[in-house]
């Protein structure tokens, strides 16, 4: 959001637990959103992109569970109304980015954007005045996210980019130009 920036509500984490709670909230939000986007595409019979979003939801769900396992947490901390500096978590797709005619290429570009933001988010923590163990955990998470960026890019290379006019509908809903 480029308007008045949100007051930084996220205090810098003072412990690895606090840091991982933040990472956990990020993965939860990202996984839930991908699942929701899969449903939206499914409702509009865009099965291919629905399947891709569902796969991304599963991948983020796996990352969420990895955090639980690493921390030995049975349940994650409450992520219901987690306030970020940005409107939503750094790995969460903005609802407004969807189009009912979008193609797998578009969905993967969104995923790439999200992974990149997540990496930058952790890199900021790694560079902040936080305890050394938090910095190490942040560096590790940032590296993981960079690896995800690379994986998504490889995936993207296997997907054809959209033809011009991909969003033209022969039977458009809009009567208002």
């Amino acid at each position, binding site marked *: 959001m480029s308007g008045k920036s949100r007051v930084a509500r996220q205090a810098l984490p003072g412990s690895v637990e606090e840091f991982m709670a933040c990472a956990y909230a990020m993965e939860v939000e990202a996984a839930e959103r991908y699942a929701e986007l899969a449903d939206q595409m499914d409702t509009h019979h865009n099965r291919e992109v629905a399947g891709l979003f569902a796969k991304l939801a599963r991948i983020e769900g796996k990352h969420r569970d990895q955090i639980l396992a690493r921390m030995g947490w049975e349940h994650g901390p409450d992520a219901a109304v987690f306030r970020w500096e940005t409107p939503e978590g750094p790995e969460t797709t903005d*609802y407004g980015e969807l189009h*009912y005619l979008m193609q797998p290429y578009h969905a993967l570009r969104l995923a790439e954007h999200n992974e990149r933001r997540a990496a930058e988010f952790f890199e900021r923590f790694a560079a902040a005045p936080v305890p050394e163990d938090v910095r190490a955990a942040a560096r590790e998470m940032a590296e993981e996210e960079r690896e995800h960026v690379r994986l998504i890019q490889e995936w993207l290379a296997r997907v054809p980019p959209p033809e011009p006019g991909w969003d033209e509908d022969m039977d458009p*809903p809009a009567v208002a130009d």
Partner: protein
Amino acid sequence: MNETAVALAPAGYKSEVKPVWCPGCGDFGVVNALSKAFAKLALRPEDIAVVSGIGCSSRIPAYMSSYGFHGVHGRALAAGTGLKIARPDLTVVVTGGDGDGYSIGGNHFLHACRRNVDMTYVVMDNRVYGMTKGQPSPTTEPDWDSKLSPDGTGLREFQPMVIALASGANFVARGFTGDPNGLAEILVEAMRHPGFSFVEVLSPCVTFRPEQKEWKKLVQEDAFTPTADAKEAAGRLMHDTGFDLGVLYAGGRAPYAPRGPRAERPVEELERRFVL
């Protein structure tokens, strides 16, 4: 409001019905924010009623696991008011669009503010009639040029927050669907505040107003400083950009309370009285 210690996750407030909205529609953000707000307040789904009129936005009750009433166009507030008076124990959230609430339902809006019944009214404002394919609404900009309004309507926009404040709403705020977490916080405050709470939600219609995708660049987070002084709030609205977010006003008017003893009648008697 019944805030009880039931630790339901936000997903527990969503129904099994998948929304049929266009992918990218802002209204998804309201389902998201409402479910987070209900979770934050630890409300039981059976203690909540989501009431609506007609429109894309008014489909919300079907998507929540609480009680719901998908009513008649423009009459959501009338139904919600009746429900809250009959069942004061319920948390009543009335929902709908700018067409539903300010055109056909405009008069109900004024009087709901004036009556100050303890409920929350969430208007998903996309400055268009989405469901009926893109006609201008009362909040549409005068120069919005479309096939259905060539050269624009030339009409000044309706000012919902000004009207709400002037008509007696006890809580007035604005949120944005692109920030569901921020909206959830506003909704929590709105539901907690006694009396009639009005929340204007900027909710882009990506199909008929695709240019509204740019709203995320225009909104100003936490732009309002909440006040209990209606005069101060009115002054603040004089330089509102239309994209200023946050709680504008949280007043101290006592909510409407029915006078005299409640007339408890058996359902059978009511049924008899309504037979034509």
